């Protein structure tokens, strides 16, 4: 599903040039659950942003479903993204002005799903995430774990093939964290490909494979059994 070769990303500011990704190569197969680990600043989030078509690389090749997307323009990337990829962030990134229901509904609006169908599907995932009873609450009124469940619900409501999660448990205590990890595992078992950045060895053990990064390069791959 994902095939990356010699991927480069360089951040230039006035004083310094930061090489965030240095000729990184990587492959993720359909149905895999991959964990990305490494010290802070090694480029994990940068990688995930590029995988999620939020950012474009400065060099190298990126095949998504056998299509070269490294040089896609904003419009094409957005189109590919909204139909194929779901995101879960460490800081949830829910919209404060919208209710739980409206937050989850958002991706469906942008992919043009009809209102009745939207309602059905939102209720379905909220049910699955066991957050249905909070559907009319605002994000500020929820606990961290509940907020992340809403974020996961939002990521999956469009039935994406790929879910990208950047430290999904980073802001959660262990029991809430485990709950979220269980959700991701369930989704993976139902066929969704997952790439997850994490600092926790415990969380990483839910995955099939751990990619270890250092200074913008993969240094090691552990296959879980």
């Amino acid at each position, binding site marked *: 599903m994902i095939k990356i070769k010699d991927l480069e990303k360089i951040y230039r500011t006035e004083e310094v040039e930061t090489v965030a990704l240095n000729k990184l190569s990587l492959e993720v197969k359909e149905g895999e659950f991959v964990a990305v680990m490494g010290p802070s600043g090694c480029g994990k989030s940068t990688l995930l942003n590029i995988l999620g078509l*939020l950012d474009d690389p400065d060099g190298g090749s990126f095949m998504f479903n056998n299509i070269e997307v490294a040089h896609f323009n904003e419009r094409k990337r957005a189109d590919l993204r909204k*139909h194929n990829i779901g995101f879960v962030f460490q*800081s949830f990134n829910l919209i404060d002005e919208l209710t739980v229901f409206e937050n989850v509904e958002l991706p469906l609006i942008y992919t043009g799903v009809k209102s009745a169908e939207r309602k059905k599907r939102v209720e379905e995932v909220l049910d699955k995430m066991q957050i249905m009873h909070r559907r009319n609450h605002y994000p500020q009124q929820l606990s961290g774990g509940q907020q992340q469940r809403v974020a996961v619900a939002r990521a999956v409501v469009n039935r994406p093939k790929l879910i990208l999660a950047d430290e999904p448990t980073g802001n959660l205590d262990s029991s809430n964290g485990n709950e979220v990890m269980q959700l991701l595992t369930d989704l993976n078992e139902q066929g969704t490909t997952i790439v997850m950045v994490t600092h926790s060895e415990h969380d990483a053990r839910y995955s099939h494979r751990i990619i270890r990064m250092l200074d913008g390069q993969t240094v090691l791959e552990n296959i879980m059994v």
Partner: protein
Amino acid sequence: MIKNYLKIAWRNLKRNKGYALLNMAGLAMGMASALLILLWVNDELAYDKFHANYDRLYQFYENQTYDGKTFTFAAMPGPFAPAAKQEIPEIEYITRTDWGTRHHFSFGDKNIYEWGLFADPDFLKMFSFKVLKGDTSKFLKDPTSLVITDKMAERFFGKDDPIGKTLKVNSDRLFTVMGVVQQPPVNSTIEFSWLASFKIYEGRNQWLRNWGNNGIQTYAQLHENADPVAVNRKLKDFISNKDSSTIAKPFLFGMKDWRLRSEFEDGKQTGGGRIEHVRLFSVIALLIIIIACINFMNLATARSEQRAREVGVRKVMGADRFSLVRQFFGESMVMSFAAVILAGFIVWLALPGFNKLVEKTIEFDFSNPVIWAGLPGIAILCGVLAGSYPSLYLSSFNPITVFRGMRAPRGSAVSVIRKGLVVVQFVISIGFIISTVVIYNQIKHVMNRQLGYSKDNVMIIPLRGGMNEHFTAIRNDLLATGVVDNAAKSNSRVISLNSSSGDFRWNGKDPSKQLLITLEWVSPEYISTMRMQLAAGRDFYPDATRDSSNVIINETLARIIGKPNVVGEKLYRESGEELTVVGVVKDFVYGNLYKEPEPLVLFCQPSAVNSLLVRLKDGQDVPKSTAAVESVIKKHAPAYPFEFRFMDEDFNNRFKTEMLTRELSKWFAILTIIISCLGLFGLAAYTAERRTREIGIRKVLGASVTNMVVLLSKDFLQLVALASILAFPLSYWLMHNWLDDYAYRINIEWWVFVLAGGLAMLIALLTVSFQAIKAALMNPVKSLRTE
């Protein structure tokens, strides 16, 4: 502490340079326009106040009632002044003057027309025109002496002493300069460059001896403790007691009302007049200030989220609410004073243009109270107005909520107020747009009115020297030039026909009804030169003597007389004069351009005229034609500088007030829309900034740029739409009232509202979408990182 506040205020300004500038620019523009308006208002209110006895000075007016309707005139009979001074002890001084004339003066090789008055000796005792040279007690007594202003003295004699010098007037009479007074200030109702004895005027106008002829102005100063009410009581029947056939009832009209409250209706002062403009403009000044302050408030509260953390920290550190209120107030004051300095600069720059627009000569002068008190006054007013609400709001934040990162939820009081204020701004802006369009249309409507004559290509030339007597020769010479189509003479200009009389009778007229009829004296070529049409009968014969007791009347009078054939009808006047109607001219618009024509009689009396009317052939080169006319006139009146006006210019001058209102309305519309949009621009920027994260999330979830622009612009456009809906009935009502003063007027059409609302929406959309597009194009990775 103060230092700390100022430091924070300064850093805030520096950090948010763009917004600080927006804020200041809007505020300064609002302040500057308010200051300009206040300068105008102050100038209007100061009219005539330089007279030491301002409170005791009056002009005599009189009421005349015809057919149940009372008309008010400033014209008085000639014998009134001397009689009143003798018989009414409250009167300290009294003077008559004519209406003012321009005469031709010459001294050596200097030839200049100067405007002046014939007045009685009391004139300079009662009015405080400063005497610079000469013996006041002798002024205006000797009919060969003159008092001139310093400006006129300079024009003729330069630096030389004018006293005792001789000026030739109208190239025949000689006058000796006996005194010099200072040029009347610009805000004086009475204007003149020279004053001459009223005896001269009296000597030339025999009709002045009659109590029944009202034709001059009369002014009085009452004694210190005199009661004007008692004087009015004595005045009421003063004239009718002298001549029982008159119906004029004189009364006192105080100087304090001359300029601003000169409107009369049915014999009573309405309290209206220019004061309505003064009030209206004061309100507009306040509105503009409010619009500018709204920007300030909105930007301050919108920015509040940025400042919430600071408030929280300060509170945790022990700041009480009062000290925070003080801090934020301090900031708005700093801003306001900075803006007023900018505003002062704008006023200084704009004043010449403004003076030209409103025809004044106001100077940027620190002795003017509007400048020395107005500048700081406006700064404090705006500081308080703009600072009060934001400082109360900002200081109310609860530190715990702030640290948890809670935002003011949607629909909270503060955002409703913010929206309400934006709506207020746009209601005012749209109102001004609508007014501008309506006024514009009304002026166009009246200017294009079918007048019943052709006003184009007609030169009006004052008859000077022997021009009147040599008319036939002049006319022949003019026609011989080949550029002149026709020429005639008339007494008044057609747009200001104002002589009228109520003494006409005819067989079958209801004797209980008196009818005021307008009179005009013309030469036989008048109707053909003006290109008026005859409805019945015939035009005057070319030989005027054949028609000396014949008249032509207009259709309106013919209708009032009400006979199937009025040609041949006899009209009788009080004096025993018997006139025969020989023709009926189709109604033409004269005098008030907004009214239907009133009854009129045209006399064929080519000697009682003031103006030469020269109709040029159509489609000729205008400068060449006028030059040809000039050479003819020069030949017949070589002593006089050639002067003329075009009739259509004269006509356009009639719209000065309306044009000024239109210009001002236009400027107010532009200004308010600019200031409102500055605010909107700032608000949109803040909204976009505040919603950066949300925009990022939405983009991650698949929103397109169009989605985002719609999302960000929608709210603002809804506000402008709401403002339009509110502005429509309001401005309809206002404009309906304005138009009500004009009998000949347009209907307010629906497209005006669509246009104004659409324009406001379009401008708002452009303003907002700039920010929205900028925000929507932002890379979501960046916006999510800023969290």
